């Protein structure tokens, strides 16, 4: 494969991204601007995550891509193939075999270990965006640690729905300093963000921002004293593997109201099925 530089991007670009990543790791939760490149895929398909992956991949790495937890959906397949072709790295769907995992909207169920890197695709890195449209103002709010507005959003949730209805992209505070958008992961995954052994890198291509969580960082989900944070999931076991503790997708299976709940993390579900676990809907 000589038509491309290793992992598609040229070395100067990767160097620029690595500098942003290092800065992000040094200031956990801080959004570092970077010169996002045009990638051969549309914005919203993970251009930020792809650039971060390209910058951290080495020829010895094993690469895994998940989209909403699944290894076999369009976004996951296309990005995996992209790096197979442009970097020639080994790919896998097994979470613990992978050294770099690019993810969209989920954290794998299996606990990640030291030596692994989790790369998130981020559509909107600014947690205050929909409350304060001025970027100049939100930057000032971050720098001066003025985060009262974030709680106004949660207040509005409770006043309208009786509980905090934000269920994904749930804002977190990193090391008692920066409020961060964890990308649109379900709030079920929020507790895994903190104290994680793996490095977590966040890339927003269109918005040209990179941020990061070094291993074992303190991450706290925002809440009220009388409405504490709650990690929620569908109250069912997985239909295929019977898991009680995993995040579930609800699938409509016929036009008569039939539905089933299955693990959104396909690797986790398949591994459990291979180990003999069986759910009530398994064939």
């Amino acid at each position, binding site marked *: 494969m000589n038509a491309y530089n290793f992992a598609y991007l040229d070395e100067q670009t990767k160097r620029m991204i690595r500098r942003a990543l290092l800065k992000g790791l040094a200031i956990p939760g801080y959004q570092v601007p970077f010169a996002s490149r045009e990638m051969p895929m549309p914005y919203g398909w993970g251009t930020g995550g792809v650039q971060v992956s390209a910058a951290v991949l080495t020829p010895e790495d094993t690469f895994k891509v998940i989209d909403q937890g699944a290894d076999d959906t369009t976004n996951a397949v296309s990005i995996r193939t992209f790096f197979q072709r442009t970097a020639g790295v080994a790919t896998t769907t097994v979470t613990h075999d992978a050294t770099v995992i690019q993810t969209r909207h989920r954290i794998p169920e299996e606990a990640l270990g030291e030596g692994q890197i989790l790369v998130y695709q981020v559509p909107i890195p600014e947690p205050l965006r929909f*409350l304060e449209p001025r970027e100049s103002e939100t930057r000032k709010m971050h720098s001066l640690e003025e985060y*009262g507005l974030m709680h106004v959003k949660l*207040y509005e949730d409770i*006043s*309208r729905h009786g509980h905090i209805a934000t269920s994904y992209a749930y804002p977190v505070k990193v090391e008692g300093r920066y409020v961060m958008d964890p990308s649109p992961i379900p709030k079920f995954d929020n507790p895994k963000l903190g104290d994680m052994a793996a490095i977590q890198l966040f890339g927003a291509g269109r918005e040209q921002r990179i941020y990061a969580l070094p291993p074992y960082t303190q991450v706290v989900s925002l809440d009220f004293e009388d*409405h504490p944070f709650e990690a929620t999931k569908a109250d069912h076991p997985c239909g295929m593997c019977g898991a009680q503790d995993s995040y579930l997708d609800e699938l409509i299976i016929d036009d008569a109201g039939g539905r089933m709940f299955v693990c959104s993390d396909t690797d986790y579900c398949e591994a459990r099925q291979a180990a003999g676990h069986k759910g009530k809907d398994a064939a």
Partner: protein
Amino acid sequence: MTPLLSVQGMTKRYGAHIGCADVSFDLYPGEVMGIVGESGSGKSTLLNCMAGHLRPDAGQVVFDTRTDGPRDTVTMSEPERRMLGRTDWAFVHQHARDGLRMGVSAGGNVGERLMAVGERHYGDIRDKATDWLGRVEIDAARIDDRPTTFSGGMQQRLQIARNLVTGPRLVFMDEPTGGLDVSVQARLLDLLRGLVRDMGLSAIIVTHDLAVVRLLADRLMVMKNGRVVEAGLTDQVLDDPQHAYSQLLVSSVLQV
């Protein structure tokens, strides 16, 4: 007695044009100061400079802070000044839309300052918001409605509630009754007068409406072309204006 706010030699230029020039005065706790003058006389520039929204070219704004005593707010660091802006100071805009978050419910608007200073108990925030809506005569049932569904007068009262909820000591008001019809104005003034007296607030009110200052202000400054041309007790200035411009201003009011 230490003045709550002491302004010295406040000057703001827009290029060669003068916004306001060499304005000095002291404001004591519990006192309401009115600033009147025609459009373009520098009233709003002066107010924005004092409130830290504009950076003056020269002058001092010394505020008697709760913790450290008198401090010059022009030279203090931005985080400190913004902290003052949401604790001890309040700013009531002429247009309620500038001072409110239109996409957030009335309760959220009132609660924002509480959350900004670290309040993290939903029930408490809501109770305080309900209490304040009552004080500004907004039906508690409207607490979850957005300000877009409120009338102009209600929006203005909501803005006042939102500003006063943290118990500020100094309120800056920029034409608080502008754009409201006379009966709504009268009720708003009544409300403001009650709040100012009950809470012992100090206030600086910029207006071109002499009736507003007659009702609310203890002292008055008349501005023209960026300079203060006359200052004194409200009744004194309005009943016996000395400067030609003050005389013109007072005689311009229609007697109904």
